[in-house]
């Protein structure tokens, strides 16, 4: 029974959110606010269950696993106190104290990222761009594998260099620098296009997932009623979108270029 009710509530909320494709409406706003409220409570639970309970309370105050020997680690009172100091932000008179906790987090973050970023973002990415590095697995390979790999390795290197030239503004983009920068823009356009295409397909597959839920799962007994209902609603939504697109927005006298 809980599954049956849950399925129909999920289907109803799904349709309420999809109704935004037509225009902002009370059903969408209801679902939107419910989503924000429920997801905030979920985050509170997540933070409690994965951070506060095991890493703070379980280290200082309570033994969460009575089967194992345990002694309190009072060092973990430090973040507890800093956390409480962070909450002084809610009291305007002593709001400035929260800077200590913030400085702790920001200072730690600043020191923590330099090493890994230098290693894996900068040096490793540069290293992986050189053709002789990328050609290492192909040493001794037949020409039919070696030559395409070599062409790809050289293209990759040239593309990385030209993109870097495009982002290098210390010289005016003229002559050779300008030509390289132009190629860099094309490479970036291909990259943006490819990643845009990937994103579109990822979102479409999510939508297909929701549509499948409505058509297949929302009717546990499996007869065609929910499929027809959902199909009808989807057709209505798409028709409404097309109808709305044909109407020029208020205040716009002629179609935009």
């Amino acid at each position, binding site marked *: 029974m809980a599954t049956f009710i849950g399925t129909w509530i999920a289907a109803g909320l799904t349709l309420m959110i999809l109704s935004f494709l037509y225009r902002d409406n009370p059903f969408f706003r209801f679902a939107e606010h419910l989503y924000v409220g429920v997801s905030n409570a979920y985050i509170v*639970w997540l933070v409690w269950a994965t951070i506060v309970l095991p890493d703070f309370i379980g280290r200082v105050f309570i033994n969460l696993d009575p089967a194992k020997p345990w002694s309190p680690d009072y060092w973990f009172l430090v973040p507890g106190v800093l956390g409480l100091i962070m909450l002084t932000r809610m009291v305007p008179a002593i709001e400035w104290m929260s800077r200590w906790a913030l400085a702790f987090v920001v200072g730690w973050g600043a020191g923590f990222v330099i090493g890994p970023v230098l290693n894996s973002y900068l040096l490793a990415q540069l290293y992986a761009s050189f053709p002789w590095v990328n050609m290492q697995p192909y040493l001794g390979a037949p020409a039919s594998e070696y030559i395409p790999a070599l062409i790809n390795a050289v293209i990759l290197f040239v593309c990385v260099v030209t993109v870097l030239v495009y982002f290098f503004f210390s010289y005016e983009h003229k002559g050779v620098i300008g030509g390289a920068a132009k190629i860099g823009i094309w490479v970036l356009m291909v990259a943006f296009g490819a*990643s845009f295409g990937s994103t579109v397909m990822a979102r479409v597959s999510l939508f297909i997932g929701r549509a499948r839920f409505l058509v297949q799962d929302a009717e546990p007994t499996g007869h065609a009623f929910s499929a027809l209902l959902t199909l009808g609603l989807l057709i209505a939504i798409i028709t409404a979108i097309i109808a709305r697109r044909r109407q020029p927005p208020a205040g716009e006298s002629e179609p935009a270029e």
Partner: protein
Amino acid sequence: MMFLRRQLPVVIAFVLGMFTLVIFYIPAAPMQGIGDRLKIFVTIIGAFAMLLGINSILGQHITKIRKRRPGYGYSWVLILGFVAMMIAWIPWWSAPPEGSAAYYPWGGLENPQGAFYWMFFWILVPMQATMFSILAFFIASAAYRSFRAKTLEATVLLVAAVIVMLGRVPLGTSMTSWLPDAGFWSSLRLETMTSWLLNIPNAAGFRGIVLGVALGIIATSVRIIFGVEKTYMGGGD
């Protein structure tokens, strides 16, 4: 007092930043232990900071209800959703798992029979998936506006996107399935072109961006450690 308000945060950031930076390059176990412990410290502080966010959003909506601003009914929905999920978290309808301490506050997703679990799977998950799925339509609309091939660069973007989109679906790949699987002509198959576009120009383009981002992160971090960048302290005294 001014020291506590303005200078002490900078000192804390400097000491923590330098210490964390130095211990990254000292592979000795005790130093790595301190580093791991600091990492947990920061997540605990972050957990407390989350309360600020919850306080902010609930406070805003409670004010909206109190002042009866337009749409305050939706604020009720938000608050009731929050409260219902929090109440559902309390596991008063079931016993704690076998072997756990009596006071262990189990509940939430750990209890598959509970209302929290039910609300998570039948309310939160479908709404989250649908919220992201409607982006498909907005992104399609954005594509319609940006893909109009007015310049050479826009054309390049359009062609790359179309190839990747077609290369990711069976209908697209079937268009070039008549080409051979191996040899030169196989590189004209849509799935091969998609793979090449993602692995070579796409990787090169984003590698260039990542290199710039890395330099930016390092520069900003150094500025924070040495107290040049102090915007995290906010305004005022």
